[in-house]
């Protein structure tokens, strides 16, 4: 008898296991419900933004009104009522903290529960953390050490005030205001996010990290991240995301823009564990995210690594524009969809420059009744002579009620380009599971072990400090998936 026949839809209560599902009871300040020019003005005023920023937002908002929600992804969800949500929520009296001691202890407690040690532990780990709670950035550690190196790492709201020239020069140059429905919405209402600038020739002395947390109910989160690596610099950045368990769906529409100049390298890692909804598909985060990196300089490099285990819906295609000659783009992805989760994720590698190279390694795992789609574009333009792409796209199925889909788009306008695409689909074999069980390894651990083995090439790309956590997360998100 095959394991497929025995495997039923996941009945164990993963909702019970979602350890990030708590709510922090904290006084909130919110914008009035709904979305209008007034909402945009409210957010901009709350942030004390200059006029140019407000105008930028309003331009985006007006544009958004004329746009249509995209429907080409392989995801199904009820119509989102954009007027039935809050677009700004902030813990009362928190902005402008000079040190962690001033932060509401309840907030710190939340971060502790999330396993984010903001205090000494982080010092030991040598990680600088920016934490975004709902709409505002609460505390940034390690500012001084970074200042010494000349690295700017701060909430984007602060950067708009303190480094307007840098922000003006780069914001919206990778993901234009008009790019797509969700990115345009983000441009209008983004509340906070992270700004990083690494100056010429500087190797950022530590891993940078932001934790995003949605806490308030009925609130969308729209963070905006902008990372610029000047010539010959290097930075590695990691974001982590969690949200409480709620029966409602909450919208998360982030925009991330990366710019790498000549010989610069940006490594961007994501561990996304937004609340996925319960085992019946109730609740969960709608994750519509636009992430794009521009290898603007010669021999620059941008590398995306993502571990996507959460969210009810994931719509996300971290991409690279390989503009500079000899630039390199990489995309390493693990996408796990369990129960009723739907993931449509992949990447776009746009080869514009000569001798550009890209590498795509995608590992999709589907369990329960989930649908998991890899959607990837490799496009080679006329001038991109000798462009190279390698794509490997592996899907793993657990049980017989889920689906894996691979949708590669390949366009080449230069005959010297070489594009390789490999794809496999497999099941966790019954004999693999039995082998583990017979050696004393319990079922959930066996699944975790096998899946972690399947994902190994991607896990290896994560910064050391986070690899172990990510491995555990892979296991936890599939607990009970084999009946």
């Amino acid at each position, binding site marked *: 008898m095959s394991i497929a026949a025995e495997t039923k839809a996941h009945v164990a209560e993963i909702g019970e296991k979602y350890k990030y599902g708590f709510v922090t009871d904290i006084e909130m300040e919110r914008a009035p419900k709904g979305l209008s020019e007034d909402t945009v003005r409210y957010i901009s005023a709350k942030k004390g933004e200059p006029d140019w920023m407000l105008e930028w937002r309003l331009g985006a908002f007006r544009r958004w009104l004329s746009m249509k929600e995209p429907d080409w992804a392989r995801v199904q969800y009820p119509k989102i009522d954009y007027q039935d949500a809050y677009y700004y929520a902030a813990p009362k009296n928190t902005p402008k903290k000079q040190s962690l001691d001033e932060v509401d202890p309840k907030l710190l407690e939340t971060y502790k529960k999330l396993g984010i040690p903001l205090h000494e532990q982080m010092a030991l780990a040598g990680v600088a953390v920016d934490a975004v709670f709902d709409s505002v950035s609460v505390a940034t550690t390690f500012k001084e050490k970074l200042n010494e190196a000349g690295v700017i790492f701060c909430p984007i709201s602060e950067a708009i005030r303190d480094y307007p020239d840098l922000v003006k020069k780069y914001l919206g140059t990778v993901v234009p205001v008009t790019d797509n429905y969700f990115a345009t919405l983000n441009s209008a209402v983004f509340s906070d996010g992270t700004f990083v600038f690494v100056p010429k020739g500087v190797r950022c002395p530590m891993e940078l990290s932001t934790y995003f947390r949605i806490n308030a109910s009925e609130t969308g989160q729209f963070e905006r991240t902008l990372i610029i690596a000047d010539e010959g610099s290097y930075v590695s950045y990691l974001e982590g995301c969690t949200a409480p368990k709620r029966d409602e769906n909450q919208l998360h529409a982030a925009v991330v823009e990366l710019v790498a100049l000549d010989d610069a390298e940006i490594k961007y890692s994501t561990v996304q564990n937004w609340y996925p909804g319960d085992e019946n598909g109730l609740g969960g985060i709608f994750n519509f995210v636009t992430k794009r990196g521009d290898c603007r300089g010669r021999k620059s490099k941008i590398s995306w690594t993502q571990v996507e285990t959460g969210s009810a819906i994931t719509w996300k295609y971290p991409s690279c524009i390989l503009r500079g000659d000899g630039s390199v783009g990489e995309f390493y992805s693990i996408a796990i969809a369990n129960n009723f989760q739907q993931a449509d994720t992949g990447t776009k590698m746009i080869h514009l420059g000569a001798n550009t190279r890209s590498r795509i390694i995608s590992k999709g795992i589907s369990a329960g009744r989930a649908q998991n789609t890899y959607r990837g574009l490799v496009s080679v333009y006329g001038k991109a002579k000798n462009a190279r792409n390698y794509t490997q796209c592996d899907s793993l199925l657990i049980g017989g009620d889920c689906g894996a889909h691979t949708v590669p788009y390949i366009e080449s306008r230069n005959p010297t380009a070489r594009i390789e695409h490999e794809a496999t689909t497999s099941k966790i074999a019954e004999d693999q599971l039995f082998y583990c069980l017979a*050696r004393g390894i319990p079922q959930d651990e066996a699944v975790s072990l096998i899946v972690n083995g399947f994902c190994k090439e991607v896990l290896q790309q994560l910064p050391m400090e986070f690899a172990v956590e990510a491995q555990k997360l892979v296991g936890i998100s599939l607990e009970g998936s084999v009946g």
Partner: protein
Amino acid sequence: MLDIRNLHVAVDGKEILRGLTLRIEAGQVHAIMGPNGSGKSTLSYILAGRAGYEITEGSITYDGEDLAALAPEARAAKGVFLAMQYPVEIPGVTTMTFLKTALNSQRRQRGEPDLDAVGVLKLVRAKAKMLNVTEEMLKRALNVGFSGGEKKRLEILQMALFEPRLAILDETDSGLDIDALRLVAEGVNTLRGPSRAMLVITHYQRLLDYIVPDRIHVLARGRIVAEGGKELALELEARGYDHLVKDVA
């Protein structure tokens, strides 16, 4: 230690074992011989607890406990070990990681503390040498790209590592050249001891030259059709199984 009575086992509704009775005491080594398809692997799977193998009649008692009531991982923790006829590949999981995970999973179930990486490595190295399992093999993904002999040696290494009370070896000799066979037999013989029972399943008499059993059972069409001392193996070698099989139609 192991008491199997009138065991009937069905797979996908098809009866494979049809009234098998077998008893092994601690300290003994028994061999099961029989033609292909007689149910030898089925017996090993039902003892290890493989899904899809159903006991329709009879009982298995291990150390006074109803074995069928235990989950497969619990059986392993209680000292049941099966060296498989076809060891399985697990891509991306290094052999060392697998050994550590398995060892600590068993220990945890017994309420013993985990061994750290260094502790496991020491233990593994001590056993690996005799079986000629190299460091390089331990770094490779489990069984991936291993030769037949390497796979079987790794099975015996695991047996040595877990120190089971009941070891079942399913055709560990198949596909081994004479040198590998000697290594494996030596590994098995070192583990023979008064508190350990072994069930050696083989198709050929050759292995029993090296691992000398206390008793031999011949399995045909799901039943024990002949039993005897070690000399039975030689007789089978000379006469084949046919005359025994005919009687059980």
